[in-house]
């Protein structure tokens, strides 16, 4: 089974989702990411979902949950690059992801993390 790679960049973690998500994959990511945050004592997590074209209610909720888990572990989590279609779907599903930070691009997401941590 394939996994979503988690890259370490200094005190930040970068997760770039380049495949279509399915339930098992997201659950695996949740496990891997929380462990990685704990292991590296990361202070920020950037999740790039610019390649994700399809979401359902479960995946939407998991994205929200993963962000919240990162926050609880002491890492600010920024969700970047959500596509318009995905945003509309989540809103229509009633998932407004309260408390989740967002940014347009990876670059801006990084700026946000750095600005807060410096």
């Amino acid at each position, binding site marked *: 089974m394939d996994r979503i790679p988690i890259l370490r960049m200094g005190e930040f973690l970068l997760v770039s989702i380049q495949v279509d998500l399915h339930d098992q994959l997201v659950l695996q990511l949740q496990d891997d990411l929380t462990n990685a945050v704990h292991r590296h004592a990361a202070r920020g997590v950037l999740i790039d979902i610019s390649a994700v074209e399809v979401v359902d209610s479960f995946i939407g909720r998991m994205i929200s949950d993963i962000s919240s888990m990162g926050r609880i572990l002491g890492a600010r989590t920024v*969700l*970047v*690059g*959500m*596509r*318009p279609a*995905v*945003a*509309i779907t*989540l*809103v*229509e599903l009633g998932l*407004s*992801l309260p408390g989740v930070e*967002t*940014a*347009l*691009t990876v670059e*801006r*997401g990084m700026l946000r993390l750095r600005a807060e941590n410096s």
Partner: protein
Amino acid sequence: MTGITSIADLLGSPVKQQTIQTQWLRNLSTAVSGTRGSISSDELAKQTQEFLQLLSAATRSGASDVDGAAYKPLRDFLEGVSRSRAQQGFTSAETAMFIFSFKQPLFEQLHAANGTNAAALAQDIWAATQLLDALGLHTIKAYQLSREDVIRRQQEDMLELSTPVVKLWDGILALPMIGTLDSARTQVVMESLLNRIVETGSEVAILDITGVPTVDTLVAQHLLKTVTALRLMGAECIISGVRPQIAQTIVHLGVDLQGVTTKANLADALALALKRTGYTVSR
């Protein structure tokens, strides 16, 4: 001899067909006179001629069912006629007259052909009435459909026209909304705005609702959806152009606009957007 075949016989004779056509054209010109008169008499003559030929061919098959295969060319022809009339702005009554003014000359000829045989005449006239009524209904149906097409196209045009996304500054988009917001429009607005956000990489979008006449709970909900979708993508949304009346309505309705930045006019919103994106404005 059934009614349909006697109509076929009538139309089969060139002389009688000619008489019917002349009478029909006269009826048509009186029925539709005084209106725009946008169809020339030449064209009318051509249309009536073609109709008579097609009707003659169709009735010769002996079939009386207008929905049948024998009447297919005739139906297609009538659809073409009503479509062109709908586009030229004829009313439905004027379009229907094309068929119904054909009754009188046809009945006259049937009368002449039957002589004093009242029973046969009644039968023929009944068959002719049924046939022409069905054709008339078909014409109206086609007319209606093409009018609906026109309306649908105009609606689509309006939808496109009323949702321009403009770039105010580097990184700042504005969307002046005009007209009532409904679900379909909000969807279009949202999609075009979100796509432009991605294209331009803008961080702030200003939704200007100066041109929205009323805000009810449904409209407010649509606005909130747009704001949430924008936030999910990582952009920020400012709602501007809130009139005093609308502010009162929103509060009275108990709509929760917390977490949404609102400004009274576009200028204030732009000033705020510039500030958020790190610009300073000086005179």
